[in-house]
């Protein structure tokens, strides 16, 4: 090969690198190892993780332990879906392009909005992407109003991006587990580009999207909703509530927990915003012989053509995860999706009542919920969580992590994998944990008191 190239050694091919920039030592990394050893290394790391099979998972916060059907793996592991690049040569990418088209259709159906893209990275950054669209659409406006009910990661991500957008982010608080409508209306002004609400919100409360959309529109702002895709089986879709842009975390649709990623973000909007949409969009097309096919449509929005004026900088998104999503939704089907939604609503109602009946536990709010709800515990939540873990239960998400006002708050998530027995087990474990924690606390108090007595 070197002869063909016309050089004496491979070193000559690196001659352009100045001598003082050449690494004169091996990389300080371990030597390469065999597949067997590599597998063992990865397996030993995996063993040190308490996964959802080791601890029955009531953790949610946007990522849920739904059952992923076996056909998802079977299909997504196929070479033809796993290994190709983005479909820039449509003639040999009809598989991927048609999948995108089917996925876009599914998201459009779920959200009730006519146009959807072929995926973004995940939930919280999709919220930021919606802000970018809104700022572009409402030229000159610089304010973004968000409900405190939005996932903390979405609010934080939006603030990070907003510094680049040159926009200010203003938060409206919650009342009784739902967005405080008066606070929201007050925060919206003529400089507001978009208003953001999440439903169900981070505390599990189902919001009235129609009212919130109206508040936004009254001042000429866009209404953006971040929604749980599974909730759209049962809840009125954003498109029917006057919402302009719907985004959300797609993980519940056929994707694994995977310690939080990869999953996908979805993005749907009204027709008016089609040419401002971020990301890939597949469109129907006809070939030279009149055959039906699919292509990447409206590429002039995208970075590879429009460059500094692109609607977004995204290139690689989450195509394989979106494929998992559309397979999942096809597997559930029209009826199965509704049945899943109803199952979740029923189990959640049961769980909320059952857990709130435990001594030392109250509901955080009594707003309607769908699959997740907040509780207040009489004992410190981290201690209770540790004790429940000892019994093989990941009891929920400590709200005090991001909500200073809910230090005693626990967010419990329900999926179809959490049976009545699991819920009952959780109730018993919570009861024990709270009692134990109380006793431990009482012991400490007595001990401190007696110490003080001794020292006095």
């Amino acid at each position, binding site marked *: 090969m070197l002869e063909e190239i016309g050089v004496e050694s491979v070193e000559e091919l690196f001659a352009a690198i100045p001598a003082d920039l050449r690494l004169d030592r091996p990389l300080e990394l371990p030597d390469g190892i065999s597949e067997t050893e590599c597998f063992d290394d990865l397996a030993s790391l995996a063993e040190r993780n308490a996964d959802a099979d080791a601890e029955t998972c009531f953790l949610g916060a946007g990522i849920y332990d739904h059952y992923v059907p076996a056909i998802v793996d079977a299909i997504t592991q196929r070479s033809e879906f796993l290994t190709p690049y983005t479909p820039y040569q449509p003639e040999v990418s009809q598989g991927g392009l048609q999948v995108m088209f089917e996925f876009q259709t599914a998201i459009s159906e779920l959200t009730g909005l006519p146009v959807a893209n072929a995926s973004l990275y995940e939930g919280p950054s999709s919220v930021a992407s919606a802000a970018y669209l809104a700022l572009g659409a409402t030229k000159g406006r610089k304010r973004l109003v968000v409900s405190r009910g939005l996932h903390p990661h979405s609010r934080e991500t939006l603030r990070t991006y907003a510094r680049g957008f040159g926009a200010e982010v203003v938060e409206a608080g919650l009342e009784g587990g739902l967005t405080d409508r008066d606070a929201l209306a007050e925060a919206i002004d003529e400089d507001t580009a978009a208003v953001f609400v999440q439903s169900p919100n981070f505390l599990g409360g189902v919001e009235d999207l129609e009212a919130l959309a109206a508040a936004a529109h009254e001042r000429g702002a866009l209404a953006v909703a971040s929604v749980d895709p599974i909730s759209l089986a049962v809840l009125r879709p954003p498109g029917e509530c006057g919402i302009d842009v719907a985004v959300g975390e797609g993980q519940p649709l056929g994707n694994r927990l*995977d310690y939080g*990623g990869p999953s996908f973000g979805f993005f749907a909007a009204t027709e008016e915003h089609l040419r401002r949409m971020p990301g890939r969009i597949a469109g129907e097309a006809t070939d030279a012989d009149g055959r039906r096919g699919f292509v990447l449509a409206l590429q002039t929005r995208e970075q590879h053509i429009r460059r500094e004026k692109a609607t977004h900088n995204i290139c690689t998104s989450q195509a394989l995860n979106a494929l998992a999503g559309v397979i999942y939704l096809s597997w559930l089907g029209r009826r199965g999706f509704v049945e899943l939604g109803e199952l979740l609503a029923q189990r959640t109602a049961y769980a909320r009542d059952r857990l709130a009946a435990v001594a030392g536990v109250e509901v955080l709010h009594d707003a309607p919920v769908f699959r997740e709800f907040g509780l207040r515990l009489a004992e410190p939540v981290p201690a209770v969580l540790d004790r429940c873990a000892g019994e093989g239960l990941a009891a929920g998400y400590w709200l005090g992590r991001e909500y200073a006002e809910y230090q005693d708050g626990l967010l419990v998530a329900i999926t179809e994998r959490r049976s009545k027995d699991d819920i009952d087990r959780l109730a018993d474990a919570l009861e024990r944990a709270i009692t134990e924690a109380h006793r431990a606390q009482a012991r400490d108090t007595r001990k401190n008191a007696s110490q003080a007595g001794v020292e006095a």
Partner: protein
Amino acid sequence: MSNPPSPPTAADVPTPQQREPAVTIYERSVEGRRAATMPPLDVPVRELADLIPPRLLRETPAALPEVSEPEIVRHYSRLSRRNFDLDTGPYPLGSCTMKHNPRLNERVAALPGHARLHPAQDPKRAQGALELMWRLERALAEITGLANVSLQPSAGSHGELAGLLLTRAYHGDRGEQRSKVLTPDTSHGTNPATVTMAGYEVVKVATDVRGGVDLDDLRAKLNEDIASLMLTNPNTLGLFDENIAEIAALVHGKGGTLYYDGANLNAIMGRSRPGDMGFDICHLNLHKSFSQPHGGGGPGAGPIAVSDRIAPYLPVPRVVRREGENGSTPRFELDHEAPESIGRLRGFQGNFGVFVRSYAYIRSLGADGLRDASETAVLNANYLLARLRAGSAGRLLPVAFDRLPMHEFVLSGAPAKRELRVKTLDIAKRLLDYGFHPPTIYFPLLVDEALMFEPTETETRESLDQLADAVEAILAEAERDPAILHEAPYTTPVRRLDEAAASRRPVVRQRRA
């Protein structure tokens, strides 16, 4: 070369795949069919309207498909065969680094300890995940020569945005307001798009006759309003910019940051490091150099590595390693408190499943393996170029810059267009009939009728020979009769599609029945 496709004749009939019309999963629906069943309800049933106010409830179900499992499997299996993929044939897309995706990585990513772990799990009980992330960070730090890493960004673009937001924070901390970012005219489109998203204005810097940054133009444009210069090295022409040290000095001299787009890292692993070149911030594409499968357009990951002066601004949460007390094992934590951090760029910790795969890849290859990979990538690119130049491509598709390229090279199809009346697009379409994915076309914009080839290290010599032979054969066809190329491809599941009509009156979802 085995089985070259014969030029089309009047007797050509559509291929079986061409005869099979495109049918969507929705069009296969038959009312009442289904695949999934739900577990039975084991809790007392209540009226939905009692649980959730009726006006918040959905009235019309989403029109999802109604199909059985065998139909779903058949539908997507058949659909998959309408895709060309890397496992099936070479994919020499420039700047995409389509290297083989080791299957071990899929197996380890699927281990329940990794795949079934919730991101909000107590870090005390996610030590394997956190240690894996920490080890990956250390490896990337060593490879890049930049010690401070965040794995959070989900793709290269996301990493670029992070880099510019870090730059903004850095200057803000110094009381400076800078408004512009320099990018070369050869830059990938994500660079200028990111510049705008980060609130800066793009200023283009020219490329000189050797294919590197034009230093005079750079000096003329550099001032204290320039926040950053975004580069990749080697650049999108596949050429290493020998002036990089001076470029770094110039940029730093004006207080700007130097950003490295890691898309071309495959050329220099173990040989040279962006940190040593003077870059402050770099992103890596785990779906390029680090073997994460492309998935038809993701998932990927775009971790960033930064110098010490930029480190305070890195996103949160950060993986932290704490020494064990009294010789016990070290502990790993997620640190959310970092007052100078730019904050979060997404939920939770990032695309962990991608970290698992890339970690396994780096672990498998080790220091020597990574260096070998880059060496072979560069060797393969140069070999392919030499083979092409030895044929009529030497005359008709000349290399755009007459220097030894690294892992990729750019040819210009301008002579072929002039002499044979075939555009780069036509050559690319005919390559599809020969069983190859074409190179990147019409990029970089600097080169007329560009073709950018990046074979990667996992192509064999035989495979490169076949590709070169195919290009040769196609040019010969063009000399005989350019119409052969104009009408190509002939054998793919569909032929050339009317993209203009698709964008004029877009149909982006299934029409409702």
